[in-house]
């Protein structure tokens, strides 16, 4: 599976980009010594362009943009990952049960899934965040709870076809318990699909978190890249022409999301050799 991703051009680019981004986020703050929250000493240090002292300029409070960028990436990634974990767990669980136990369980679960699919995601996320507060935990939960239907559907259709395979039929005739069959036979075969979907859900979650943070619903204490953009927007960085404040976190988001999407699409192509004519 991984070799397939590597040989695919776009997949390879994605993996390289991913490595680069992860390196910067995770190792960056350790290497670069600026203090993220140190305020500027005078009014003249507000919204300064990139310079030797501040590689990416300063914010409206005189803080170093580059350092904030390094630290903020972790939050964005963390929320994205947590939300994805929730979404995948929920989605896989529901998809497995619905696809395996066809019948009334399937119908009910699918109705619920369809309902959640229909709800407008961003407004729902906004409302939930407004109701339940603005911590990282809430954000992750909220994004995860709105992203699982997509996974559930995909897993379910795969399980539906898998359960008719001879292996499963034989196991059932031998009297194996359902849970055992699901865990031992079906789950491993669904795993690659889960993985491809996971990466795509991850990129979606990162975008969702960025949107939430931009709209002011992110965790105010832990500044993610979206929060940086929120601050930039509200402090008039644009009328000041402070492009460094906007471009730095923004490009960070784009690169991270793009990296995950490239890898995800490559995985999808590897997993679906049925796609005739395309790469």
């Amino acid at each position, binding site marked *: 599976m991984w070799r397939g991703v590597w040989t695919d051009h776009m997949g390879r680019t994605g993996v390289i980009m991913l490595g680069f981004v992860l390196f910067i986020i995770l190792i960056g703050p350790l290497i670069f010594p600026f203090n993220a929250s140190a305020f500027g000493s005078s009014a003249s240090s507000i919204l300064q362009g990139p310079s030797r002292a501040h590689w990416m300029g300063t914010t409206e409070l005189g803080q170093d943009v580059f350092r904030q960028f390094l630290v903020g990436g972790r939050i964005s990634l963390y929320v994205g990952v947590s939300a994805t974990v929730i979404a995948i767990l929920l989605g896989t669980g529901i998809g497995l049960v619905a696809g395996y136990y066809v019948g009334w369980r399937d119908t009910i679960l699918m109705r619920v899934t369809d309902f959640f699919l*229909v*709800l*407008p995601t961003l407004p729902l996320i906004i409302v939930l965040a407004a*109701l339940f507060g603005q911590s990282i935990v809430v954000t992750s939960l909220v994004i995860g709870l709105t992203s699982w239907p997509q996974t559930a559907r995909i897993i379910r259709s795969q399980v539906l076809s898998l359960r008719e395979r001879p292996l499963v039929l034989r196991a059932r005739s031998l009297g194996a318990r359902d849970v055992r069959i699901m865990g031992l036979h079906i789950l491993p075969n669904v795993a690659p699909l889960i993985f491809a979907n996971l990466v795509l859900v991850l990129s979606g979650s990162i975008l969702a978190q960025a*949107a939430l943070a931009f709209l002011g619903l992110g965790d105010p204490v832990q500044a993610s890249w979206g929060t940086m953009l929120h601050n930039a*927007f509200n402090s008039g960085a644009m009328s000041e022409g402070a492009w460094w404040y906007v471009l730095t976190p923004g490009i960070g*988001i784009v690169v991270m999301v793009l990296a995950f*999407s490239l890898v995800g699409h490559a995985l999808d192509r590897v997993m679906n050799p049925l796609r005739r*004519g*395309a790469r």
Partner: protein
Amino acid sequence: MSVRYLARKMITLAITLYVTVSFNFLLFHVLPGNPVQLLARSGHFDAAARTQLIKLFGLNHSLLVQYFTYLNDMAHGHLGFSYIYREPVTTVLGSAVGNTVLLVGTATVITVIVGVWFGVVAAARANSLTDASITVTSLSLWSMPDFFTGMILIFIFGVWSHVFPVSGIESPGLTTGTFGHVFDIGRHLILPALTLTLVNAAEFSLITRNTLVDVLVEDYIVTARAKGLRRHVIIWRHAVRNALLPVVTATALYVGMILGGAIQVETVFSWPGLGLLTYNAVEQRDYPVLEGSFLLFAIAVIATNFFADLLYQALDARVRET
């Protein structure tokens, strides 16, 4: 399409709408931390005022009675009273809907045209450099959050050059006649619409490309080529028609989602539509407006999904149920 099928679909629609309205009730009136209770229990009021408030919001009744009162209100078109604007929520929403529809409608038309065109070009030259560059550009554009694209456009067109206005729907204090007014709105429309287009055309071009690529290797296309038809004719008249199906449904679904999805763009450009309204409502915790706009978004998605379904049935003979 049979009447039975239509009837069944409408029943499903009604049920979904009902569940959505109930879900809305759940969200805003039942869950702990819900605004109605918070308001009544806030420590700022003395006992008498609090009792009045409780009576006003009907909190002295059981949850079930509240629920039916809520449904009753909804049936009569009462969506509550805005805390901030001191007006019925319906009025507040009504003044904003038109602006959003204008923005979204314009953006949708351009998005579909541009997106599909690029998708077709990419598919026609599948696996070439053109295809790769279009696909990569589309993926990159898709990876950009809406608001970030907007901010970049503001920089390019509003700050470093002053070509287009960057906020609002009209210039304050403009005294030209109707045509001048329309033209002014048009100028303000360009950047937000462009932002929406950039992000979403990318998705459309990706969908179109992938669908068309699958269609182009089908047997009937090979037959057409064997017949000697020119490539141009084959692609446009035969292949695209069949590949357009998912695109059409995607368009319908997109319109439904975009009502809620324009929130970011409207915020960045201060476009006075539903999105900006929602953003302000969240900031100021104006829950009645939030509740109303959420309901509106949900209904928009459900309604457009319904029509997308019907459209799909009408267009694709293979899927039609008898």
